[in-house]
């Protein structure tokens, strides 16, 4: 598998803003993810959903980026949930205790 470029598409749906992530979540995703979250803050939803359905690879730097986003969201009083994580990354979110601070939705959440 080749490395795939990270993408983050922000869409508004009822009650939340969804961030559709794609590609590899690593150090190179930093700016794209930050810009996407900035767009989320402009929209000001009560909840942001991170859709990992098209993310094939998350490394420790990617985890750190999620932590940073989560910290910002919490400061903003915004709930975060993760959807579309594979079983492996759900395990990693559990081990890192990210799952204590964000709802992990199994499968493709509505």
């Amino acid at each position, binding site marked *: 598998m080749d490395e795939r470029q990270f993408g983050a598409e922000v869409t508004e749906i009822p009650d939340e803003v969804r961030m559709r992530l794609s590609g590899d979540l690593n150090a190179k995703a930093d700016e794209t993810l930050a810009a996407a979250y900035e767009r989320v803050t402009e929209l000001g939803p009560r909840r942001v959903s991170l859709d990992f359905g098209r993310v094939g690879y998350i490394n*420790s730097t990617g985890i750190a980026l999620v932590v940073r986003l989560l910290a910002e969201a919490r400061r903003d009083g915004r709930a975060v949930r993760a959807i579309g994580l594979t079983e492996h990354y759900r395990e990693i979110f559990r081990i*890192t205790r990210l799952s204590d601070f964000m709802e992990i939705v199994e499968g493709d959440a509505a």
Partner: protein
Amino acid sequence: MTALTRPIRRLLGRGDPLVEAPRVPPAEPIPESAAADQATGSIALDIAESDPLLAYLQSAPGPVDVAKLELDSPAVTALREAGVALVVPLVSQGELIGTLNLGPRLSEQDYSTDDRRLLATLAAQAAPAIRVAQLVREQAHEAAEREKVDQEMRVATLIQQQFLPRELPNLPHWQIAAYYGPARAVGGDFYDFIEMPGGRIGIAVGDVTDKGVPAALVMARTHSILRAEASRTDSPGEILARANELLVPEMPARMFVTCLFAILDPRTGRIVLANAGHNLPYVRTDDGVVELRATGMPLGLISDSHYNETEGVIAPGSNVLLYSDGLVEAHDPGQQMFGFPRLREAMTIDDAGSELLDRLLEDLRTFTGPDWEQEDDITLVTLRRASGVSEPAVEAASLTTGFSIPGEQGNERLAMDRVGAAVADLGIAPARLERLKTAVSEATMNAIEYGSQGRADVPVDVEIEATPDAVIVRITDRALSGAVPDDAETPDIDLKLAGAQKARGWGLFLIKNMVDSMDVTSDGSTQTVTLTMARKEPTDG
């Protein structure tokens, strides 16, 4: 009488003015003539090519009185000193081929007209006979030279054959055949099968540039080195790299060795190979003919050469062909080369073992025509995995392989995927495989960041060992920044979210949680992180 002959034809031809003249037994003594040197009956005299005596004798009508010669000639001086009074030129077909040298008559009288006539007649009759003797001698010499060359070729062939396997490996569900056909001027082809741990087989096919005994000796040396190195490691890339280091200092000028080294696990069909400039093997599968691609410098040329490894699985019903240049570089009468496309096309037919080899050789004979003289050694090795064989139990399989990646950020993904592919068939549960891959990725990231400082020219080596119980991955970096710091700070999500700990710092934490054990060793110049994961779920199965 003294007889003096010199191989003028040879001497002139070689431009060597001081070749010692061969001594011919004296002819029947002429009555009343005295030997200049009665003890030996002959004298030997070298006449320089530029000596005017040669031209003089060439055109002299008959016997020549040495005393009357007025030539500035060292040869004349030498003749006088040797007591020669009369020189009779021996001319055959207009060419001076020697002289009869006579001392003074015993009666101390001058040679009479009759004597001279007799001597001239004798010379006229003797010259052709002597010329014939010279030709016979030359031919005998040439025959001896030819024999020497033939003998050398016999020695080269003997060396060559000494190092070819006496028998082929007998592997259940595999059909193996090999062919070695030496050219008349024996080249340096070789092939070998080496038993390796875990029931695997090392397969080497090589070709030494040059021909004859020098090539055979280099081939013998390479053969021995490969065997020795294969007993020390089972990474084909490493075997070639070590062989290269040993061969570089001792390789004769303008010689090198191309060599392909593959390790086959006959139970799984997995093949790992590295290549030092040799032809790429063809694999015939149900989907067509493909090349197993791996590149590297030939052995013996440049120190510190690196040999990438390629892996593949020979599926049941597939066929592999390893071959030397002799086949693809054979020419037809119109000087067209047999070439790779023709061989590839020939591989599309599903033949196996010696049938395949026979057909390839028949194709070659048809291509080159009946008068072809084989230009180079031809080596062919083929392995076919029987179709319809069920995949073996992975418990039994073991594997050691490895590769290197440039120490550049992002390549951890490459390392992760390659390790994933290498162990994919070992029957590890998918969840555990994902964990191993994450651990490999994280450990490689650290190696790139600290060990290579992100420099593409500073590689990170990854070695994968599969034992019956566990998969062990060793990631070795060049320790440019010293040891990778062990997280003094255990990442704490509460602290991180509160901004009391930086967001990063999950790497080692993840690794430790992903695999059964992680060990770090360092020897000053390298650091190795060893990740171990049991092949079977020990607790959470």
